[in-house]
Every structure is written in structure tokens, then in C-alpha cells.
């Protein structure tokens, strides 16, 4: 137990042991702790038993269509950026039975059964990931139609955020205002501090449950010097983003240029495989199928991840609404960056760069946007010159 008075929003300093203690404390509170670990040479999120399972001393190197792990010079616990899977799969599972029915004497009745859901704690949520969860909250629980499964998981969720002091080559969270430091929405926020041989963490609570965990730790208030170093580290991440997205007037620009020739150019490269939507932490499209028993008595209604890159997704009587790859890519990108703003009052992009890295042909949403922006600006300038 700490003797320091602990309050929300104040930064404290702890050692590596405290990270293990947080994990233990969450487990004791019956949370299933989910965090980063290495599988098949990639950092994924899975159930964590102890901190030795974290990707210690490992970082990820991103390029368009390429992802590799390399060793770091230090023993950082959270010294990587993002892997292929976000935490999305825990709140919005890839496949979920949403309804079971049975036909009895010709009548269909709903089989109701309250299923037990594990209380989840997400450990090592990068600020862009957190922003993605806050965006999905708007989609699944803030609107008129509430997704029960999502809401149940979300209400019980504990979030440990880890701020980024290093930006990856595919990161652009500063452009989307979603990092490298989390501003709200977390229970605990951590900044890993490795200064020479000193390995510590700055930590702050963002909620009552966070405060409760914090109070059990052996902590002291962070010095002004250490907080200054943290600011420098976060600034360094801000200034070293591998990608940039200019969001000024982006919505109008894209929606006014739906017939821009560059869409055709992208369509030549896009395989329409849907990977960008699968790895995107905010994409929420799904398909619903009824799975009947052979005798037609029992039925399960299953929801699974779908993608606007699938032709079937926009199939209505007579054919697919978006029959060309061009129209499907344009639909995805203009939704993320433009119409999402009208729909949810926010960008649909958090700058995590997954769609760039996990596109096996390396299509880069930031570069494609820049190309359209540049060409449109150049055209406007040309026009202005002619008029003058």
C-alpha cells in the first residue's frame, strides 16, 4: 500500500514490478487480462498471465505491405507500435451468434439464455487503439440501436493505455488527433520511461477503478523533471510520425472529387481482398446469416465481420451496387475520411497505419489522399491563373 495521497489525473512513478502488480491486481478482480504477446513472429493481443509474456525488448518495423519484428537495444515492455489485430475482436467478435430460435408446433420461438461473459481488461492499449474504441462506442452504443454484446463487454472493460514515445514508420496519429498520448477514456495510462539504465513508468489514473488499482501500488509522485522528460519523449514521437494526413477540408475535397481519375489508378492496384477493413480498428461492417438445422426446426442467426470490398456486401436485387473495385475502394476511403464525419461526428481513421502495413500490395491511404489533394490544388491554381 502506498503512503502517498493518490488522485486522478496526477502522474506517479513506478518500477517494472508495478506492471506485474497491476496485472495481478486485475486478475484478482476477476478480469481476463488481454495484452500484447508474440505469436508467429508478430505482436498480437492474447490472454496474458504474467509480464514475461509481453514482447520485451522487441519492436516492429513497418512498411507498406511489410511487417517484421527486430530486437531493441533496451528491454522495453511496450516498445512496439501496432500489430495486425486491434482489440476490436474482443468487443465486436469476428463471428457471434446473436439469436437462436426453435420452431415448435409451427410457431417460431426465441431461445433466451443469458451467456456468461468474461470481464475483460485490455493491457497495453495504444492511444490510437483507445481512440478506435471510443469511435466504436459511438457506433455500437451511443446511437438509437444498441449492440448488447458490445455494451456488456464495454461496461465491464478496464483499459490500461500505454502512451507512445516512439512513432512507427506507418503511424500518423498526430494527423488524426488520436495520439501519441491518450487524453481520456482510460482507467490507467502509462508512459514507459527508459533513461540510461533506469527503467520506470509514469502512471496516472483516469477513473475510479484505475485509482483503486493505483492505490495498491508502491508509488511516488513524479518529479517535475521526469514529467518534462516525458513531454520531450512524447514530442519526439509527435515529430517523428512516419506518415502524415492533411485533414483540413478533407471531407469536402473527397466528396467533391468522386470522379477524380486517381480512383481508377488505385483500382488497378487494389485486389479488393478486404484486408484493410479487417485490420482497421474502427471498421464495423458485418453480415448476418441464418444457419438452420437440416430439419428446419432450429436456427442460429450468426453475425460475422464483412467488408465493403466484397461484392456480395452491396448486393441487392439485380446485382451489386458497387460492382467495380474502384467504387468499392472509393466507398471505403471516403467513408473513413469523409462521410464518417457526417455519420458519427469524427474521422473514421485513427492513424494506426494498419491498412497500409497489412495491404499486401502496399496501398497507402495517406499517399492516395495526398495525390488527390495535390492534383486538385494544382488544378485549382491553374484555373485561378487562367482567370487572372
Amino acid at each position, binding site marked *: 500500500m502506498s503512503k502517498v495521497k493518490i488522485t486522478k489525473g496526477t502522474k506517479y512513478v513506478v518500477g517494472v514490478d508495478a506492471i506485474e502488480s497491476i496485472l495481478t491486481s486485475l486478475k484478482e478482480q476477476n478480469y481476463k487480462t488481454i495484452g500484447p504477446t508474440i*505469436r*508467429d*513472429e*508478430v505482436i*498480437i493481443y492474447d490472454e496474458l498471465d504474467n509480464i514475461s509474456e509481453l514482447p520485451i525488448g522487441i519492436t516492429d518495423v513497418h512498411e507498406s*505491405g*511489410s*511487417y*517484421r519484428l527486430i530486437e531493441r537495444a533496451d528491454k522495453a515492455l511496450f516498445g512496439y507500435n501496432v500489430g*495486425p*489485430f486491434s482489440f476490436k*475482436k474482443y468487443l465486436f467478435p*469476428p*463471428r457471434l451468434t446473436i439469436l437462436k430460435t426453435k420452431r415448435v408446433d409451427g410457431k417460431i420461438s426465441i431461445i433466451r439464455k443469458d451467456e456468461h461473459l468474461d470481464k475483460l481488461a485490455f493491457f497495453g492499449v495504444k492511444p490510437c487503439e483507445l481512440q478506435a474504441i471510443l469511435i466504436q462506442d459511438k457506433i455500437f452504443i451511443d446511437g438509437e440501436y444498441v449492440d448488447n454484446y458490445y455494451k456488456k463487454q464495454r461496461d465491464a472493460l478496464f483499459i490500461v493505455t500505454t502512451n507512445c514515445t516512439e512513432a512507427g514508420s506507418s503511424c500518423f496519429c498526430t494527423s488524426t488527433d488520436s495520439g501519441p498520448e491518450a487524453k481520456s477514456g482510460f482507467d490507467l495510462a502509462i508512459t514507459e520511461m527508459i533513461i540510461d539504465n533506469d527503467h520506470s513508468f509514469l502512471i496516472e489514473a483516469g477513473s475510479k477503478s484505475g485509482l483503486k488499482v493505483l492505490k495498491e501500488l508502491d508509488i511516488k509522485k513524479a518529479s517535475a523533471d521526469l514529467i518534462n522528460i516525458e513531454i520531450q519523449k512524447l514530442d519526439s514521437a509527435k515529430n517523428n510520425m512516419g506518415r502524415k494526413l492533411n485533414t483540413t477540408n478533407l471531407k469536402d475535397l473527397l466528396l467533391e472529387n468522386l470522379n477524380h481519375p486517381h480512383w481508377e489508378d488505385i*483500382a*488497378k*492496384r*487494389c*485486389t*479488393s*481482398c*478486404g*484486408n484493410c477493413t*479487417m*485490420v482497421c480498428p474502427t471498421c464495423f461492417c458485418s*453480415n448476418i*446469416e*441464418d*444457419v*438452420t*438445422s*437440416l*430439419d*428446419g426446426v432450429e436456427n442460429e442467426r450468426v453475425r*460475422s*465481420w*464483412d*467488408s465493403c*470490398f*466484397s*461484392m*456480395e*456486401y452491396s448486393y441487392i436485387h439485380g446485382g451489386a451496387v458497387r*460492382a467495380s*473495385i474502384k467504387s468499392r475502394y472509393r466507398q471505403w476511403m471516403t467513408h473513413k475520411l469523409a462521410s464518417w464525419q457526417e455519420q458519427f461526428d469524427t474521422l473514421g481513421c485513427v492513424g494506426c497505419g494498419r491498412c497500409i*502495413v*497489412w495491404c*499486401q*500490395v*502496399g496501398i497507402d491511404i495517406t499517399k492516395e489522399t495526398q495525390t488527390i489533394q495535390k492534383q486538385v490544388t494544382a488544378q485549382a491554381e491553374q484555373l485561378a491563373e487562367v482567370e487572372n
Partner: protein
Amino acid sequence: MPLNKTSKPKLAVWKFASCDGCQLSLLDCEDALLAIADKIVIASFPEASREIIKGPYEISLVEGSITSAHDAERIHKIRRMSKTLITIGACATSGGIQALKNFKDVNDFINIVYAKPDYISSLKNSTPIAEHVKVDFELRGCPINKLALVEVCNAYLNRRKPNIPTHSVCIECKRRGNICVMVSKGIPCLGPVTHAGCDAICPAYNRGCYSCFGPSEDPNVKSLSNQFEEMGMSKDELIRIYRGINANAEEFKNESIFHEQK
């Protein structure tokens, strides 16, 4: 609505040029097969029983490709006695591995393989069933996924559309939680242009997809080839990657010929 219990539909299984693997997946359905047999009369299925009930049949499952003049005629007879004709497997839906002969002169092979080539009567090309008769539904794969076969029978019995997606393997790969082998390991993978249905089994074992299910609904094969070339794939390898089980599928055929003629 389920069918009237008094009129069990009759099902027949037909074999053309194939390895029998797809029709065996019907036997492999085990418990589900018993449930199917409860609702459908398995009227003609020589692989399972010598007892054959005469047609016409409500459902015909057709395996294999057309490689002989005799078979090209036989499929029309089968079509005439079948209300619904469903082709099963890569041979029936694209021409199968035997369609590799389409890219060469078949007589060259016959002369090498057979002691008495005169006895062999084979068409120049191996072709899918749909090139000969109207097909109501195509079930892809080498072999087909037995669960998909049960689903097609199930959908038929319950008068609904089968839940058989036509999108890429990538979508089921990500749903399954696989790691992309192309991005993380630089392994060439046909998943982005391949029809779903296998539940991304090869990438789950760190292998690239080699397209047992053939092209997806709208495959951009050209773009994937460009990426393979950038990864260092040679012209020969590029030809070979498309000349597999679904070599005769339109998009793959055109792409392999394009690289051959380059």
C-alpha cells in the same frame, strides 16, 4: 418452409474426370449424412451403394470435368433428368488439374504415357461442366469443404440461399485470426484473389494459399502478380503459381498465358 415430409427429394451423384475426392466428402459428412439421408433419398451414389433408383432426380451433384466426347454427351442426359444441378469441386467448376493439358498438345502426353495411344480418345481440353450445360450452383474447392456441401443440401431443403461467400480468402483468414504470411513473412499467397471456402487453412499453417477454390468474385490478379514480381518471383514461377488446380479458370488462365507470352 421445409419440404412436405411425404415427398422426399431424390439425389444423385455423378462422376466425370476427377479423383473422387469431392464425392467422398459426402461420405465424410458422417452424422450430417445420416441427417441428410433422413430428408433426401440418396437415389444414385455408386461410391456408397450399388442400389440405384432411376431418375429423374431433384438434385444432381456433379463431380469432375469433361475430357471426352462420351462425357460431353453424358452430361446433357444428366441435365435433362435433373431438376437442380450442382457442380462440386475444382474439376467440375474450372476443369481441374487435368486442364493443364489445355496449355499443351494432348497427343504429346498420350504418346508418352500410353503403350497403345490409339486406344485413347480424349478431348483437346478439359472443361468445366458449366461450359456444357446450365449449372444451378457451383461449389468450389479441391476438395470441396464438406460443411459447405451440407450447407448447400440444407439450404435446398429449407428453400433458402446457401450461405456460401464468394469474397476473398483474406476475409476468412482475418476472421480466423491468422497472421498474413505475405506481409509478415514475404511468402507469396494467392489468398487475395482466391474464393473463400476453406477457412484459410494454409495461411493458418504458415503457408501461402495456392487457390484450391479458384478465383474470387472479382479478382485483381494483375496487381497481385506485380507484387509477386516485386518480391522476386521469376517468370516461370509466376506461370506456375496460376497453373495449379484451377489453371483453366478464366482469370488464372489469362494471367498465366500473359506471363508465358511476355
